[in-house]
């Protein structure tokens, strides 16, 4: 299969079950909503080292938020509910409570509701106030800029993490340009985030290592500088590989995101050095969700 001269490998991305939540952050203006959201989703690229994978889903206008202020929606994913709850509380306390004018609201309804500001309220030292409005409980916590407003809980849902595809190009700038085009297109898809810096990761990993304490290490088969010495997946004309990882609320969301991302990357075409699109997997042994590239690209 080829798109615009770019070869699409007959392979698949392998993804995992995760727990996810959405939080809506509002502030006096978008500038401060982004300050809060960027802090909350900072150092959240991979569950391997960060506990959660998080990112900004999209910007929200004033008519889309509960309190009628500008906002952004955040998605956060973890391998289990316990970690998600712990990370959400920590990040709420350090990133949203602290950010001038910011407020936080639930962005997803679920039977499983987890603490958003439920425990954070104790920062109010007895002066916190609860209000039940429209069947939802909110906490008002006195802070130095006025009052911090947060909903008590947010929903936790079953989600999927680790959807991905690889862009193989003849040079590093060309690989990056294709990934940037892909990310811009994928940002328009709801219910997904691309948690790595700028949405792109260069250090794809394989399971295991020669070092016993390492459970993941560099994906040498896709490292262009090792082509001559390892069992490489790269042809002579590939000099750079970059990966886009996607976490989403449902299989269909990730599949749609992969489709628009791959198509955007391929739009640069072989003439601009984009040679192949592949995907990362572990032989189908680790994750129950397989995103077959050819099937995904046939998704309407």
């Amino acid at each position, binding site marked *: 299969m080829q798109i615009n001269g770019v070869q699409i490998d007959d392979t698949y991305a392998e993804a995992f079950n995760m727990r996810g939540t959405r939080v809506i952050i509002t502030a006096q203006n978008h500038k401060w909503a982004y300050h809060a959201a960027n802090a909350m989703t900072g150092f959240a690229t991979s569950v391997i080292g960060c506990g959660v994978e998080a990112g900004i889903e999209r910007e929200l206008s004033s008519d889309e938020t*509960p*309190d*009628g*202020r500008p906002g952004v929606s955040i998605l956060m994913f973890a391998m289990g509910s316990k970690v998600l709850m712990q990370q959400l509380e920590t990040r709420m306390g350090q990133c949203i409570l602290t950010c001038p004018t910011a*407020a936080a609201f639930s962005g997803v309804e679920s039977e499983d509701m987890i603490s958003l500001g439920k425990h954070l309220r104790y920062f109010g030292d*007895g*002066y916190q*106030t*609860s*209000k*039940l*409005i*429209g069947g939802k409980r*909110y906490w*008002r916590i006195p802070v130095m800029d*006025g*009052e911090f*407003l947060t909903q008590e809980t947010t929903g936790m849902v079953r989600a999927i993490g680790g959807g991905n595809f690889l862009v193989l190009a003849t040079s590093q700038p060309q690989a990056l340009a294709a990934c940037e085009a892909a990310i811009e297109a994928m940002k328009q898809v709801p219910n997904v985030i691309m948690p790595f810096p700028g949405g792109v990761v260069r250090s794809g990993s394989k399971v295991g290592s020669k070092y016993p304490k390492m459970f993941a290490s560099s994906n040498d088969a896709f490292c262009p500088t090792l082509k001559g010495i390892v069992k490489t997946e790269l042809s002579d004309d590939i000099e750079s590989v970059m990966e886009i990882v996607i976490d989403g609320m449902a299989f269909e969301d990730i599949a749609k995101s992969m489709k628009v991302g791959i198509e955007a990357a391929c739009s640069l075409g072989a003439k601009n050095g984009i040679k192949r699109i592949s995907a990362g997997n572990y032989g189908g042994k680790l994750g129950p969700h397989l995103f077959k590239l050819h099937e995904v690209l046939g998704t309407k």
Partner: protein
Amino acid sequence: MSALTLTLKKSPQFKLSCVGITPNKLAGLNTTQIKNLKLGTSKNAPLLTDYFEVAGDDASHIIFKSSSSQLDNIGFEMKSGQITIDGDAGDSLGAKMRGGTIICKGSANDRVADQMRRGLILIDGNAGEYCASRMIAGTVGIYGNVGAYLGFSLRRGTLLLTKTPSAQATWQDCGTHTLPFLSLLFAALKPLDSKFTKLNNTRVQRWMGDASQNGKGEILLVQP
């Protein structure tokens, strides 16, 4: 289904207790059972049908039509649903309330929301003395004037006013602020049939009290 409407046939000569006429107490009762409810607890207490025409069948929303200030204890121990009072209410409106919404389109007498724990009461007219006395939590809005001893022994809760209350030693002025939660509250009030739907200014003067209790309640005076 239409709201259960209780139309007052005649203004009672004496105070009439409306204890028990709440959505939670009337849930599951048919019209005959509702008509035969006793108003009050005495042996010779009148029946509901003696004073009210009964129409409608949805007890989750009770409407008192042609209501009078002789009707005490409307919404007493109410837990859910809505009561709309098309007229005035007597003493102890929403006393010991535990949830739901009461909208009074006229005025209410003394001790509105006495010992109220949860829920929303909106009064388009005036409220009498000891409004929100011994209140534990919840939200009470009074669009008109409010009598003396507002929030006497109140522990927590929000009293939303549009007219300045009389000063009290046990309520402390905390200044004028823009409170973000009010935009949520005002949005929730918009669908209701009340003067409070007009409010959209989240800037309020805030008093905290009653200091004779734990002082964690608040009076919010909406700024013009």
